[in-house]
């Protein structure tokens, strides 16, 4: 039963208020893209056992989509941040590195 803090409204939202949206920071490939790029965009997922960047919507709250960095093995949450970014912010990355020295990093 996760708790994630919505970076928009500041509410510590419990899982029942939220809708999960899968892996974050996917780049959309549209018409003209290669078969491989399109397939990866649609299907290939990092699915790490460890640090995961993912999308959530505060559906039964402010309605905003936001992103979270979370460990899929312990469910520890490293931080949440607005969805309007193409990669994790530096302060989140630093926080993860401090807590998970073995982490191979984003990408």
């Amino acid at each position, binding site marked *: *039963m*996760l*708790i*994630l803090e919505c970076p928009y409204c500041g509410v510590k939202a*419990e899982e029942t208020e939220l*809708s999960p*949206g899968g892996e974050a920071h996917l780049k*959309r*490939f*549209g*018409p*003209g*893209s290669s*078969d491989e790029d*399109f397939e990866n965009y*649609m299907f290939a997922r990092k699915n790490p056992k460890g640090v995961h960047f993912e*999308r959530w*919507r505060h*559906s039964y709250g402010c*309605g*905003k*989509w936001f992103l979270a960095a979370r460990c899929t093995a*312990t*469910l*520890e*949450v490293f931080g949440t941040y607005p*969805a*309007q970014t193409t990669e994790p912010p530096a302060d989140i990355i630093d926080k993860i590195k401090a*807590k998970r020295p073995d982490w191979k990093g984003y990408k």
Partner: protein
Amino acid sequence: MSTRLSKGGRLIDRTAPQEFTFNGKRLRGYRGDTLAAALLANDQMLVGRSFKYHRPRGIVASGAEEPNALVNMGEGGRFEPNQRTTTTELFDGLTCTSQNHWPSLEFDVGVVNNYAARFLPAGFYYKTFIHPRFAWKHVFEPVVRQSAGLGKVPKERDADRYEQAYAFCDILVVGGGIAGLQAALTAGRAGKRVWLVEQTAHWGGRAVVDGAEIDGQPAEAWVKSALQALEGMANVTIRSRCMAAGSYDHGYVLCDEKVADHTPGDGRPRHRLWRLRAGQIIAATGAIERPLSFAGNDIPGVMLASAVRDYVINWAVAPGDRTVVVTNNDDAYRTAIALKEAGLEVPVILDARASVTGDLPARARAMGIRVEAGRAIAKVKGGKRVTGVAICAQAGQGAVLEEIACDAVAMSGGWSPVVHLWSHCGGKLKWDDAQAQFTPDKARPPLNHDGSALVQTAGCASGVLATAEVLADATEAAGGGAVPAANGPAEAALEPIWVMPQGAPVQLRMKMWLDYQNDVKVSDVQLAAREGYTSVEHTKRYTTLGMATDQGKLSNINGLAVLADSLSSPIPQVGTTTFRPPYTPVTIGALAGEARGEIFQPLRRSPMHDWHLAQNAYMEPVGLWQRPYCYPRPGETHEQAVHREVRNTRSNVGLLDASTLGKIIVKGPDAGRFLDMLYTNVMSNLAIGKCRYGLMCNEQGFLSDDGVVARIDEDTWLCHTTSGGSDRIHAWMEDWLQCEWWDWQVYTANVTEQFAQIAVVGPNARKVLEKLGGMDVSKEALPFMTWADGVLGGFRVRAYRISFSGELSYEIAVPASEGRAFWDALVAVGAEFGMMPYGTEGLHVLRAEKGFIMIGDETDGTVIPQDLNLGWAISKKKDDYLGKRGQERPYLASPDRWKLVGLETLDGSVIQDGAYAPAPGFNANGQRNTQGRVTSTYFSPTLNKGIAMGLVKGGLSRLGEVIEMTKLDGTTQQVRIVDPVFYDKEGEKQNV
């Protein structure tokens, strides 16, 4: 025999006798008794039969760990199987019966299994009942099933209700013993928001029974003053009869409060399920005493030593007149002392340790109790009740030295901390050699959302047993503070004893029970190890050790110690099985809560909902909405009603409640650009005042929703979606706007519930509206596929000239609050034009006659617009729209895809729902090849014949061809491929 003592009993009120029945026998107890205590007070030691061998079973414990004493309780709508008597509070009028026997508790035919026990070792069923093949299902399994199972099956609907509530705190303390109280006091004084829960009705735990001294006063007095102090703190909430069932990630804890179990039918909810969110959890959950494994340790009258003194001290019940105590530790001497002080006989204390020192044994000896060191029980004598014990040396193989008559045995094999809440979320354990127990490894706690320790343990749950240490540990767990002084007797170390006597031969080991309920013995675990089921999980599953309703509270540690010994591995290397919630079983009704019947799920009601019900509409669920399927008149079948409604709509005028249709406003400078991405066709060039049908696909390219879009003003569009799709599509829009095109200036609002929408459909539609009076609804003023704001019958309306039936049709939106009044006004003026309401099934037939597709019928998540001949609604000019790239993939662009056609039988009958069109031959897996399937099929009352739509390989290029369609009886029928538009092909009727 077991009896009520004439004096004492901390918890009973002798002025309040309570009558109850057991197997029809009328018995008496007192308020404050547990059902188990009251049964024992009436000399009812035999209370049930075991799972596998149907052996007689007596009460073993005094709390949640009880494996045997389960009963069928109550009657009718309050009947409940498997009630644990040791945690059931007695009330006047309680009725219960014992379980798992036939014909009676005393004479159980199933005990034949016991005589055959030698042939029924662990896992015997994996090795037999194999041949012949049909025999398992038809012969063996029914016998096994009938023999297994415990309680009877409830027959009636639950008469009680259950409540659910949320609460939040900084610190949740679980357990109302001295550790829990001290932790709560410490946290409460520090100003934390504290919850303290205790599973029983009483506070103080073991300390008040065992007579510890705290702050210079008896534990009982200290507990009382601690409770008073806690009750005086505004930041502390305390709840008794409230069991913390499980800890879940991020501090979510489920607590089951038994509000009215002991006062059934008094109008209160039976249970209240608390969903607590705690910043931190302190598990002050105590420890559970372990049985010892000696032959005959399951015979009724053999009990845990702590339980024996609980019964004596708390309820003034003597489980026996002569009780032999057998132990490997000092604590059990407390039981001997308590029995002696109550005037009962303790013929001997058998202590497996070679030397016996310590304060408690000294006291016992001083009281004149015989203490035998290095001794063990070779065998308990008796059948349905203990009659004596045979004594042997612990060190030997069980040669009997002496026999002593007794009617009860109090055993203690040491204590196991209750670590469930620590372990549920991944807290790790370590083995404590000195006390022979798994204790929480505080270096590896379960983690909270921020990576901090979610759970602390306090007191016995941490593995400390002495009162002073318990209080110090609890204080530290709660953040530190003043520790009350405490003193008690010095206790000598226990000696781990896993089998008694040490060298017991297999004949004895076959009689040593580990899991009383499931009949798992020491020999079974050893057999599992011998056969290679060496993982503790394998052993558990192969023998069913720890899988009974007590979930191994008594048996797990003893079992894995036996396993470790068999494997010559250290115990920690063998490890434990996984602790899973709940701590003790929780009533399913409490977990389901109040969502039953009409309010099982949220109900969405259109403004006209009550009118539909008043008209005797047959309602169908559409998402969380309920919509009228049809409005049958007296004597009409649903089918007849649908046909009448369709015919009337085609010939006069019909009225449809379309309020559930999704309505989403999309507004902003970039709204047009956004809709061009969302829809397959172009919406940005739609003229103000006009409507356009549009399709939406997912990124795979599959059709996901459709509807009419209206351009409201320069930067505002209103998108209609399907009834089921409004929330999904709104979320979909927001997803793209927030996460992909966040720099586009677009705002969306889902106004589905803000407007009632009513379709007035049929040749007389215009006459009805004109009669109502107001805005000009003529063909010239309001042509097909336009909309206008205006007034009708005094209501402010927005009228859309759109049609899903092929008839002259207006869909009229009014504010939801005026929906019912407007509907009533339409009904009133419509009568003279032959107006009748029609339901969703009529809607389906009308659209099918016109060949209009329905999302969910013609589509199923694998269909693209091109399959449905909707290429005209796909813009060729746009570079991009959602789904365009997906549709370019080879399989979606293939010419072999099945495409939409009309279908009709040669004789006018109706094709069956879901029918497939077989093709010649079989595929590589031997399955019949197929070439199409039906997607919608109805009887058309308008055309008086069956009509259908379907997807067929080759599509309309095969017009006129006759193919086969399957029928449920295995035959096929011939159908002709036709144009999917069956009625008014030119579309003249909607455009008048």
